[in-house]
């Protein structure tokens, strides 16, 4: 930069609106079944939040996160914040849903929020994706 100011390469990012769509990549094929979708919203060990994509098409989400997966669920940003959860962007097309506890620290809340997030989600894209390499 001409003025010598430091620019954070990871930000800043735009504010998300209630109508913004978030895309959650589905790693287990069985989670594509409506009644099993909640498992896709359980926080993994060491994760600080649930990985979601935004500002992209549902069909692009799998290649953004580059995980072996079977499809993509979509949910509205407004639906997530209504559950008192925050969506924190960490990339122009990627964010984390924060505020979900791990089942080891708060099992009831972890399970309840997984159910709630599944309830406000729909399957938006079904395709087998294998990460490159």
């Amino acid at each position, binding site marked *: 930069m001409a003025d010598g100011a430091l620019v954070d390469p990871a930000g800043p990012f735009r504010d998300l609106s209630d109508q913004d769509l978030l895309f959650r990549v589905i790693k287990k094929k069985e989670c594509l079944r409506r*009644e099993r979708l909640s*498992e896709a919203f*359980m926080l*993994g*060990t060491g994760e600080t939040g649930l990985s979601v994509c935004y500002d992209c098409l549902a069909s692009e989400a799998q290649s953004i996160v580059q995980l072996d997966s*079977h499809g993509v669920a979509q949910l509205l940003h407004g639906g997530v914040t209504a559950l008192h959860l925050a969506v924190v962007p960490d990339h122009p097309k990627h964010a984390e849903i924060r505020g979900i506890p791990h*089942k080891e620290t708060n*099992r009831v809340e972890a*399970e309840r929020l997984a*159910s709630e997030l599944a309830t406000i989600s729909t399957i938006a894209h079904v395709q087998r994706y294998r990460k490159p390499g």
Partner: protein
Amino acid sequence: MAAQPNTLCGLGTSSPTRSSRSSEPPSEELRDSLEKLQDSLEQLKTDVQQASLKLLELSTPPDSSFSGGDVLQALREMKWSGGVLKVYEMTYGITPASRVSSQIISAIDQLKAGKEDEVVPTDFAYMTACAVIQSAYSREAQTARNVPRIMPEPWVTTDDVGGIRVLWNFGSRKLRANFGARPELQTYLYYESNSELNAEPLDAELLKRRLTWLTER
């Protein structure tokens, strides 16, 4: 099924019972009735076996709206459910509970052998899950009073560290058994309905009670 159930019911309204109470040898009428009853029962067993196999076959495709639980519920809702279920058990030599139990154990074994999308469960989770499931679904446990005959089939999966999760859904009710991968990780039973949700310790007795809760009206 033709008219076999009616034939069976019809025999129940005749008078063989009165004759059988006496010390006299069975009358010809009674022998005929018994033979008809036996024939009817054999025919009914065959019919139920074929119908059940057909219905269970329908439950095989992953996208089918049928499941074993649906089949049993359908049978249960028929007025002659008691007889049909009894014949179902006689035909297969198993109860709905033992069938579902076998399916769950088989699913856990498949996870242990390695399955796509899944982490291989730890020995600790494997042994805990098998012991609790088998005990909760055991014939002894499920012949207790007030245990439902409807047995929803759960989904068996793993968490990211090799714990086992068994998930049942029935209407708006959800039941999730979480078997921790290691002794220091949480093993619990989570239940949820429109009016309540909580988690409790996971053992065979509590699981059996929650399975009853899952399907009670």
